[in-house]
């Protein structure tokens, strides 16, 4: 499932920073951008079909979707004596 929320927490020696970002909003923007860019991509595919990365370019959108849909569950946590950074996609 596509991640809906990104949690980001940065704690330093001073004040910390917490963010609960609904990434679903970002995905909507990405989708809109992809739709806008689709005609240009198709033109690029047509021009480079015979000699170039044309067929591979066609796979960009499915691959991009597979990455976005696999992000759910990604979790990073780094900590040292002074700072702590936490990020997760759920």
């Amino acid at each position, binding site marked *: 499932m596509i991640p809906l929320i990104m949690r980001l927490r940065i704690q330093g020696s001073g004040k910390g920073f917490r963010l609960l970002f609904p990434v679903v909003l970002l995905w909507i923007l990405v989708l809109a951008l992809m739709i806008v860019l689709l005609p240009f991509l198709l033109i690029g595919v047509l021009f480079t079909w015979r000699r170039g990365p044309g067929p591979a370019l066609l796979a960009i959108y499915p691959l991009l979707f*597979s990455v976005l849909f*696999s992000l759910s569950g*990604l979790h990073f946590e780094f*900590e040292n004596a002074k700072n702590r950074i936490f990020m997760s996609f759920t």
Partner: protein
Amino acid sequence: MNEDRKKILEMLAAGKISVEEAEKLLSALSSSQPDSQGELSGKSAPKYLRVLVEPGPKSEVQDRVNVRVPLKLIRAGLKWAAFIPKHAQGTVNQALQEKGIELDFTKIKPEDIEEIVTQLNDLTVDVEGKEKVRVFCE
């Protein structure tokens, strides 16, 4: 107590079967049990690759790393390797050979990628030095 085992013992107590027959039935039952238990307690396919770095007892640096990467993301990410230009693949091959790894990067197919990720399931790396590093699938 297992229901089948109980029935056998009840049949023995009631004199419906002899001791030898009961023994045979019980041994047949016990030999079939590990398989069924294995199925029930069988490990489900791991979903994440976990990397944990913790400071060792003698470590001065108290850095900690905890990364959990979905295996699906690794699979999806590896498919992007198809977009690496040919000349860059040659450079990768050269760099691998310099490190003593005889691997032709250009010959890696999607099936191989799937195989690599599947084999990751059994991967467990434990390194204990100044830091304690653990890499495993869960």
